[in-house]
């Protein structure tokens, strides 16, 4: 299995900012790896995900996904990356049905000048069933609870049939049983389909069993990485947690 995601000395600065949100990140993620990214607020976790999929262009360095430069092949690459966005709040009057929002994830895969067919809809309903949300497929997303909508977003990302899954706080708004359900699903997908997954969470307890590597970010830099238990017991991470407690 080769590297699917490669960051080579990547820094990312938001427009209007002077300080990089990511500093000289060098990172390689192999096919089938399940990588968790943890760190305090403002560490650059979301920035890392959006630099990987090219939504946020890297200011310096090279980002390669599937062996291609994200800067020049971003559109093509993003068709194969499922992304669950963080803190997505919608208006209660948003006029889109749940099943249609899930289908939207497949837009890039289906391609221009083509229409969704039966197989596409089967994918949609199958993923909604996996997440236990098939019951409100015809309900407008604005009428869903936060947790229900979060599951719609996850189903959307899975319906894309991605080769890489980027998940930014996917368990936000989910109750305990839903978290378990989604966590088991992600583990199954990773093991059975070798789905490369990058999972961002500020909650260490939420990290699924399938996780093979944990990366700790702080102030835009990778400060530690390795197996979860090793990382959590490291002195660097202990200091981070202590720093966090002082600020609370």
């Amino acid at each position, binding site marked *: 299995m080769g590297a699917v995601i490669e960051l080579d000395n990547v820094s990312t600065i938001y427009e209007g900012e002077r300080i990089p949100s990511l500093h000289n990140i060098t990172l390689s993620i192999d096919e089938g790896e399940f990588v968790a990214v943890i760190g305090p607020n403002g560490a650059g976790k979301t920035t890392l995900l959006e630099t990987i999929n090219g939504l946020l262009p890297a200011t310096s360095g090279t980002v390669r996904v599937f062996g291609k430069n994200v800067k020049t092949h971003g559109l093509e690459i993003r068709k194969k990356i499922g992304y669950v966005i963080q803190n997505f709040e919608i208006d209660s009057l948003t*006029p*889109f049905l749940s099943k249609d929002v899930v289908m939207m994830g497949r837009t*890039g895969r289906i391609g221009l000048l083509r229409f*969704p067919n039966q197989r596409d809809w089967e994918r949609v309903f199958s993923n909604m069933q996996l997440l236990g949300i098939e019951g409100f497929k015809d309900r407008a997303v604005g009428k869903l609870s936060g947790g229900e909508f979060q599951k719609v977003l996850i189903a959307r990302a899975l319906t894309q049939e991605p080769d890489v899954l980027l998940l930014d706080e996917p368990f936000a708004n989910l109750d305990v049983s839903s978290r378990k359900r989604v966590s088991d699903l992600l583990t199954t997908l990773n093991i059975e389909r070798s789905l490369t997954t990058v999972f961002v969470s500020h909650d260490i307890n939420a990290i699924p069993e399938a996780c093979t590597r944990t990366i700790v970010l702080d102030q835009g830099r990778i400060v530690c990485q390795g197996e979860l238990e090793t990382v959590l017991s490291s002195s660097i991470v202990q200091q981070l947690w202590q720093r966090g407690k002082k600020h609370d």
Partner: protein
Amino acid sequence: MIELPLILLITALLGSILAGLSCSTIGVFVVRMNLVSIGYCMSHAAFAGAAFGLLINVDPMFGAIVFSIATALFLGPLSEKAKLESNVVIGFLFSIMIAFAFIFLNMIPGNAATGAALSILWGSIFMINLNDLFLLVLLSFVMLLFFILFYKELTAMLFHRKLAEASGVNTKMFFFAILFFVGFTVSVSLKLVGGLLVFALIVNPTSTAYQLFFDFKKISLASPVIGVVSCLLGFLVSLEWNLPIGAAIVVVSSLIFAFSILFSPKRKKGKKPLFS
């Protein structure tokens, strides 16, 4: 009631239907994408362009198209990347375009030209000719074809632009396509509805549809129907009571919108949607 020659009547009637169809179709995207301010700016740019066209003795529609597309080219990137509050820039362009329009109108020699210019201001049944009809037909056809062929990309973008981009949709390309369609629609509908009111025909029918439906597919089908009905009724009112057609259409569409708010299922509790 005004008596019209049959050919003029048919031309104006067809023009009303097509203007209603195209304006309210693009309105679905304008409202959802929060392009109302940009759209108002473009409609006033089209008005300024039409006035300039009259001044230099060129078809006002050509001037309208050039000015509104130029505004789209300027405002499009600005709305994407503005560090300055975009409403400030839009407010500036809005007022300067109106100022230019009135300057150009003032510079047009003779009463006839002024009459034509004022007709652009509030619309006129008599301004529509066969060329305009042809353009309206072409615009409506191209726009409908575009929206049907790229429906899934456009709705993904309308739901959430960033997520659409993350799924592999080239949202920038579609955003600019929408802006160009707004510019063309406004320019081509200018003669019938008038520069000051054309944008109401873009916003009102769609706003009505949003009041009545929860499903975007139904909204995008209902909006053109409401737009055509508004234009037809406005046309009849204009003929019956000798009113400027643009104003008549806008009053009718505004009344329809007001009724839709009263009967909107989005405000009712414990009741089934009006159209499910």
